C-alpha cells in the first residue's frame, strides 16, 4: 500500500524537481529565475494547445510520446522509493526496466526520423550512440551490486537496510558507483555537459531537437516522460548517497525527498560551473564513468572474496 502511495507522490512531484535545477542555475547567474512550479505551468500550457503534424509522419510519430511515457512509468513501477520495496519486483527486473527504457528510446528515435528532417536525424543519431556506452556503465554497476548482494532486483539493492549495509561493507566501490551513476544520469537526462537543454541551436541539440516537431499534448507527454526518467536515475543515486533509515517511514520519506532535491541542486551546480563538452568528447566522458564502475567492481572483489 505504501508503495502505491509513494508511486503517486513521485508521479505528482516529478515536475517539481527540475525547478530546483533552474533556480540553482539562476542563483549562479545572479538572477531570480523562474518559479519553482514552472514545469507544472509548462505542462498545463501544452495541454491547452492543439498540434501540427508534419505531412511526412505516420502513426509511429503519435506512438512515440505514448510509448516513451509508458516506459518511464513502468521503470517507476519497479523503482523502490524512500526505502520501501517497489510495487513490482522479481529477479532480473533491472534488466527489464533498462530494456523498457531502451524501447522508449527506440520509439523516440523512430518518431524523430519520421519527420524527414535532418535536424531530427542528427539528434536521433546521437541519441542512438551515447546510451550504448551508458548501458555498459549501468550493467557494470549491476555486476558490482550483484557481487555485493547476490541479487538482481532493484528492490533488493535500493530498499530497506541494504544501502546502509553496502556502505558499511564496501564504501569505496559505492563512492565510485555514485559518481558513475551521476554521469549516467547527466547523459540519459540530457543535461550539461552532454546536452544543453536550454540551447536554441538545432545543430547542437540532442533531445530537444528530437522533439522539435512535437507540439501540444504530445509534447506534454514527452516532457512528463523526461521528468520521470530523470527522477528514476536520481532515485537510484539518492539511497546510495544518503543511506539513512529512520524509525518513522514519513521521516525516511522526508530524508529521501531532501536527498533528491539535493541531487537536483548538484545537477544545477554542475550545469552552472561546467560548459557543454564538444560532441566528440562526450564518449570519453561516459567511458570515464564506465572506468569508475569497472574499478569499483574490481575493488569490491576484495570485500566479497
Amino acid at each position, binding site marked *: 500500500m505504501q508503495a502505491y502511495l509513494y508511486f503517486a507522490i513521485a508521479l505528482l512531484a516529478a515536475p517539481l524537481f527540475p525547478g530546483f535545477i533552474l533556480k540553482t542555475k539562476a542563483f549562479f547567474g545572479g538572477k531570480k529565475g523562474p518559479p519553482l512550479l514552472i514545469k507544472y505551468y509548462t505542462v498545463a500550457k501544452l495541454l491547452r494547445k492543439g498540434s501540427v503534424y508534419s505531412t511526412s509522419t505516420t502513426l509511429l510519430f503519435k506512438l512515440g510520446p505514448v510509448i516513451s511515457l509508458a516506459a518511464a512509468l513502468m521503470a517507476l513501477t519497479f523503482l523502490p522509493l524512500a526505502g520501501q520495496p517497489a510495487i513490482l519486483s522479481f529477479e532480473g527486473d533491472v534488466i527489464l526496466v533498462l530494456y523498457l527504457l531502451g524501447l522508449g528510446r527506440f520509439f523516440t528515435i523512430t518518431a524523430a526520423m519520421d519527420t524527414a*528532417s535532418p535536424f531530427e536525424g542528427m539528434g536521433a543519431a546521437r541519441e542512438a550512440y551515447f546510451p550504448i556506452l551508458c548501458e555498459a556503465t549501468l550493467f557494470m554497476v549491476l555486476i558490482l551490486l550483484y557481487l555485493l548482494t547476490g541479487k538482481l532486483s532493484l528492490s533488493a539493492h535500493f530498499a530497506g537496510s541494504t544501502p546502509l549495509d553496502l556502505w558499511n561493507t564496501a564504501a569505496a566501490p559505492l563512492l565510485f558507483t555514485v559518481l558513475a551513476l551521476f554521469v549516467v544520469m547527466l547523459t540519459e537526462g540530457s543535461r550539461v555537459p552532454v546536452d544543453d537543454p536550454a540551447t536554441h541551436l538545432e545543430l547542437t541539440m540532442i533531445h530537444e531537437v528530437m522533439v522539435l516537431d512535437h507540439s501540444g499534448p504530445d509534447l506534454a507527454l514527452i516532457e512528463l516522460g523526461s521528468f520521470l526518467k530523470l527522477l528514476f536515475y536520481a532515485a537510484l543515486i539518492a539511497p546510495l548517497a544518503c543511506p539513512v533509515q529512520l524509525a518513522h517511514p514519513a521521516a525516511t520519506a522526508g530524508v529521501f525527498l531532501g536527498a533528491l532535491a539535493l541531487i537536483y541542486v548538484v545537477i544545477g551546480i554542475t550545469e552552472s560551473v561546467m560548459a557543454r563538452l564538444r560532441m566528440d568528447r562526450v564518449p570519453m566522458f561516459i567511458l570515464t564513468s564506465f572506468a569508475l564502475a569497472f574499478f569499483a567492481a574490481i575493488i569490491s572483489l576484495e570485500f566479497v572474496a
Partner: protein
Amino acid sequence: MNHLFAALGIILAGGVLPLLMGRRLTAIRTTGALGIATGSLLGLIHAVTLLGTGGTHSASYRYLHTFNLAFRLDGLAAFFLVAIFTICLLAALYSFHYMDDPDRPGRTAAHYLLFALLTVSMALVVTANNMLAFAFAWEIMSLSSFFLVLYHYEEEANRRAGLLYLIFSQVGAMFLFAAFGVAFAHTGSFSFEALRALPENTKLLVFCLAFVGLGSKAGVFPLHFWLPHAHPAAPSHVSAVMSGVMIKVGLYGILRLYLLLGYQGRAPGYILLVSGILSGLVGVVYALGQDDLKRLLAYSSVENVGIILIGFGLGMIGVATGQPAMAALGFTGALLHVLNHALFKSLLFMGAGMVLHTTHSTRIDQLGGLLKRMKITGTTFVLGTLAIAGLPPLNGFVSEFLVYLGSFRGLTGGRTVMLLSLLAIISLAVIGGLAIACFTRVVGVAFQGEPRSDAAANAQESGVSMMLPMVLLAGGCLFIGVYPDFIIRLAHNAVVSVGLPQTVSTLKHTLALANQITRGAALFFGLVALLWLLRTLLYRAKTVTRAGTWGCGFTQPTTKMQYTGSSYADDILHFFKSIVPKRVDHPPIEGRFPSATRYHSEINDLAERQVEPLILRPVHWIFEKLRWIQHGDIHLYIGYILLTIVVLLFFV
C-alpha cells in the same frame, strides 16, 4: 521416424513435381510451394508433439549395401526441426508470389527442387546419428544452398559470392571430416555413441576441428565473411532460410558434438564464449556500416549467432563447474534464441524481399517513406526490428534475458569464469545498444521520412502469399514475447532429453521468470492503452492541422536533405574505427568557386581484408618456391609418374 520420413518425402515430391510441369509457371509455383509447405507442416506437427510428450525415435538404413546411415529423433533434434520446418513452410508460401519471373520457368522449377533438397538435408543433419549420415546430409545441404545462391547467376557479384561460399563450405567440411577422421582413427567406428570413449585430449582436438568447420557454416567471426556475400545473392526467401535456419544447423552440430563427446573440462565453454562475444560485437558493428539492406541483415545474423554462442558457452561452463542453474539458463536462453532469431530474421528478410520486389533496390540510402506506401510490410518489419533489438515485449528480449541471468550466475564462479561472465554481460549490453542503433537506422532511413528515389516513391506491396508469412511471423514474435511459457517448456524438454543436468526446480524457476515477463508485458500494454485513451481525450477539443516539416525557414526542401544512413552510423563507426576499416573517396573542395565533387565511403570486412596478407600471400610464397617442379618437359613428368608408382609399390 516414419512420420518424419513421410513428411520429407512429401517435401521431395514438392521439389520434383515442378520439373514435370514444363513451362507453366503457375503450375510450377503451385506444386512446388504447396508440396514443400505441406510436408513442412506435417513435419512441424510431428516435431512439436514429440517435444511435448518427450521420447525418442531411431531408424537406420543400409545405403548401397555398404554404409550404415543411422538417424535419431530426440528432443534436441525435434526442437531444431521446429525451427527448420516453420521457416521452410513460411518461405515456401512466400516463394509463390515472389518467384514471378515469366521468362524463367525452368530455373524456377530447378529452384524448387534445390529448396526441397535443402529442407530435407537440414532435417536429416539434425536427426543424423552417425558420422556418415551427418556428413552425407551436410554435403547435400551445402551443395543445394550453393546452387540456390547462384540463382541470379547473370550478375558477377552473385557468381563470386557463390564461389566464396563454395570454398568456405568445402574447407569447413574438410575440417569436419578431419574431426571425424581423428575420432574414427581412435574408435574404428562411425557411430556417435563411440565418441564418448575417446581420450580427453583427443576429444578436445575433435571438438576444436569440428568447431572450425561447423562454425564457418554458422558464421562465427572470423570465418563469417562469406555470409554477407552469399545471403544477399540468393532469392529473399532462400536468404531467410539460410540466415534463419541453415546457420542454426551449424550451431546444432557444435552443441550435439559437445554433448556426444562429454568432455569434462571448461575449454569448450571458454572457446564458445569468447567466439560469441567477438562475433556478436563485430557482427553488429559491421551491420551498422552497411548500405545494402540484405548485407546488413546478414551481418546481424553473425551478431545473433554470437549471442547464441554466448548462451551455449555459459551453459557449458555451468556444466563443467557444476552450477546447474547457470547451465539451465544458458542453454535454455540460447536454444530459445535459436528459434526466436529464426522467426524474426526470416521476417526481416521477407520484408527486404518485398522491398526488393517492388523497388528493385535494397540500398537504404535510395529508399525512404516505405512505411506509408507498404503498410503491412512496414508494420511487420518494424515489429521484426523491435524483436531483433531485444526489446520487450517481443521475443528477442526473453531469450536475451535468460542468457543475461545465466551470465550473472557465472559471476560467483572462479576468477576466469567471473572475468568471462563480466565480459559476456558487458558485451550483451553493448550489443543490445548497437542493435537498437542499427535497426532504428534501417527503419528510420528506409521506411520513414520521404522517398529518396522514384522507385521508392512508387513502391507498392503486392502478393498475399508474401504478406501472410510476414504477418504470421510478426504475430509469433509478439506471442512468444508476451507469453513465453509454452516455448520455454519446449526448450526445456529439448535440454532435458540430452541428459544435461537439469532438475524440476530449474524449470520451475525459469517458468516463474517467464511468468513475470508476461505480467510485465501485460502491464505495459495496459499502460499504453490507458495513455492512448488519455491522449485521445486530451486531443478532443483541440485544433489539429498538418503542414510540411519545419526546415528552419528553408523554402526549397528536397528529399536529399534528409539524414542518410551513412551519417547516422558514422559517429558509432568512428568509435570502433580500429576494427572497421573505412575507405573514403572524397576529392577535397578547393578554391573559391569549387566545382562538383563526390563522396564515396566503403566499409571493408576486417577478416576479409586480412585473408590476403595472412593466408594468401604466405601460401603463394610457398608455392612460388615449388614452381620449379612445373617446367613443361613431358619426359620429366613421365619420370614423376614412374617415381610415384615405385614409391607406392615398395613403401606403401
